[in-house]
């Protein structure tokens, strides 16, 4: 957990509106665990004011090269351009100086190696699952169910395949893989193998459907949630979600940035979580 003043190593569009950014990030190889995130400061001015949270896609290093450059530890993030901050991010170049706070939050628990692992990713929700897959493939069978609206939303799937992950792609418009929702694929898989462990990240309606399906099969589930965040470190209490047993009289809020962003399904109050869908797009 550090605030690095660091630089961008590369920043490339990998699908329409999706960018992959590599950032010099000392110590992350040692510190970061799957499911954690960073708070990225987009500009040195006050517009946009707040840092943006992004899952860590991958941690790596570039070997020392012939220019006598030293070995470089880096992280990669993958982001979708949706608003004021990401619009500026897409214009950033190699060598631009930025600030990076992280690694933050609690990531995924890997659980029993004997269990089959099913990763469910919706669009950009795929991001935090890659590092997890890297770890899980060492001990377990891993499948990835990846869904998106169109084929443009299906990113980096081949990289999962290279890890030895069995991948299933579905798109709502049928432009890639099966036509339909990723949750119907999950339904099929669990019908065949309910003893799997499921890890999901994606839009709230998807997460919600995944939870209902897993609950039906009593399958263990961990989800990574997106909440609005100001600080990322547990100080502002802006990012809370309602925990299991929450009521107005006895509120049980959990901090997404510190106690999450990954939660075991049992930790959460699913009857109220739909409201989380109101992740607001910011005012500007």
């Amino acid at each position, binding site marked *: 957990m550090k605030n690095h003043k660091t630089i961008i190593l590369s920043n490339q569009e990998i699908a329409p509106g999706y960018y992959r950014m590599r950032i010099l990030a000392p110590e992350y190889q040692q510190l970061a665990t799957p499911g954690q995130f960073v708070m990225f*400061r987009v500009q040195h001015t006050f517009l946009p004011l707040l840092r943006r949270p992004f899952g860590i896609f991958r941690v790596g290093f570039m070997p020392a090269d012939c220019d006598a450059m030293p070995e470089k530890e880096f992280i990669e993030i993958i982001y979708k351009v949706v608003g004021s901050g990401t619009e500026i991010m897409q214009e950033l170049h190699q060598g631009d100086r930025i600030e990076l706070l992280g690694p933050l939050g609690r990531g995924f628990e890997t659980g029993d190696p004997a269990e089959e692992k099913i990763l469910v990713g919706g669009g950009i929700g795929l991001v935090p699952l890659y590092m997890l897959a890297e770890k899980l493939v060492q001990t377990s069978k891993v499948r990835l169910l990846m869904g998106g609206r169109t084929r443009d939303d299906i990113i980096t799937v081949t990289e999962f395949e290279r890890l030895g992950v069995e991948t299933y792609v579905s798109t709502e418009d049928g432009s890639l893989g099966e036509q339909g929702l990723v949750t119907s694929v999950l339904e099929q898989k669990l019908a065949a193998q309910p003893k799997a462990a499921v890890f999901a990240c994606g839009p709230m309606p998807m997460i919600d459907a995944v939870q209902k399906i897993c609950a039906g099969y009593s399958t263990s589930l961990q989800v990574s949630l997106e909440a609005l965040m*100001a600080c990322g470190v547990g100080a502002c209490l802006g990012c809370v979600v309602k925990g299991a047993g929450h009521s107005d009289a006895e509120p049980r*809020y959990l901090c997404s940035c510190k106690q999450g962003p990954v939660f075991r399904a049992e930790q959460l109050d699913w009857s109220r979580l739909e409201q989380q869908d109101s992740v607001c797009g910011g005012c500007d």
Partner: protein
Amino acid sequence: MAEQTEVVSKRPQMAVEIAGIKLKNPVMPASGTFGYGEEYAPYLDLNQLGAIVTKGLSLKPKAGNNTPRICETVSGMLNAIGLQNVGIDAFIADKMPFLQQIDAPVIVNFFGNTQEEYAEVAARLDDLPGVAGLEMNISCPNVKQGGIVFGTEARAAQDVVSLVRKRTDKPLIVKLSPNVTDIRVLARAVEDAGADAISLINTLTGMAVDVKTRKPRLANTIGGLSGPAIRPVAVRLVHQVVQAVKLPVIGIGGIARAIDALEFLIVGATAVQVGTANFVDPNAMQTVIDGLEEFCQNEGIADINELIGSLKQ
């Protein structure tokens, strides 16, 4: 030349005193933006701060508002956290032990929904070791008086501060709301009621709308605006209060850099609080402290107290 070198190399005196609390330097966090200190310990040496100010505390734990609770605006943010906090028992048990180890005075921000609640929290904090002072947030609706905000009505403010004053001997800082017609009336009321210092500003009331869904961006509809956007309003209010009362004043509102803090010191604030900027840069307060020292050095100011209230007209 010899003389100039001497001035430059000598480190300026940075300590200030407010209501009997001695601060290494005039910079501390604003309540609610720094948790209970420990959240920022990995990023900042807490011992370097002028003081630590904790998240608003109430007698009982408080749930806070529904989400969304925050929303970014142009160079600012809205929040409607709803004063979620652990309550005084958990604060004493879980948070104070950490704070007591820090070599910086701890100022506990607190509030209540009734006069009695205010008085009760103050009394509980009065004999708590390691608490250097109390900051009383009077920007809360008074549930007994039909929701009028204590801090917007001079009579209500004076009554609640008087009551609290009777229950604590600790230095009492009263934090004012900016959402009033004449801040001087409020400042004089809390001075008369026995406050030892005044801090301001709390957030400006604001609102934002998601034009797609046509819903307010905050579940609570209305929230508090903070950050660099509000600084000119804060500087003006601090300027007015400094001229209206004899009490020392702590300036708050949109401070992110040393030059921002300097505006407040020059108009007469004895110390400053950094709020929203902590979210933008967890190291913001250190940057402000270093920048103030550098400014004094460059301008040949031996003691930062010389700057306070040095506005020229």
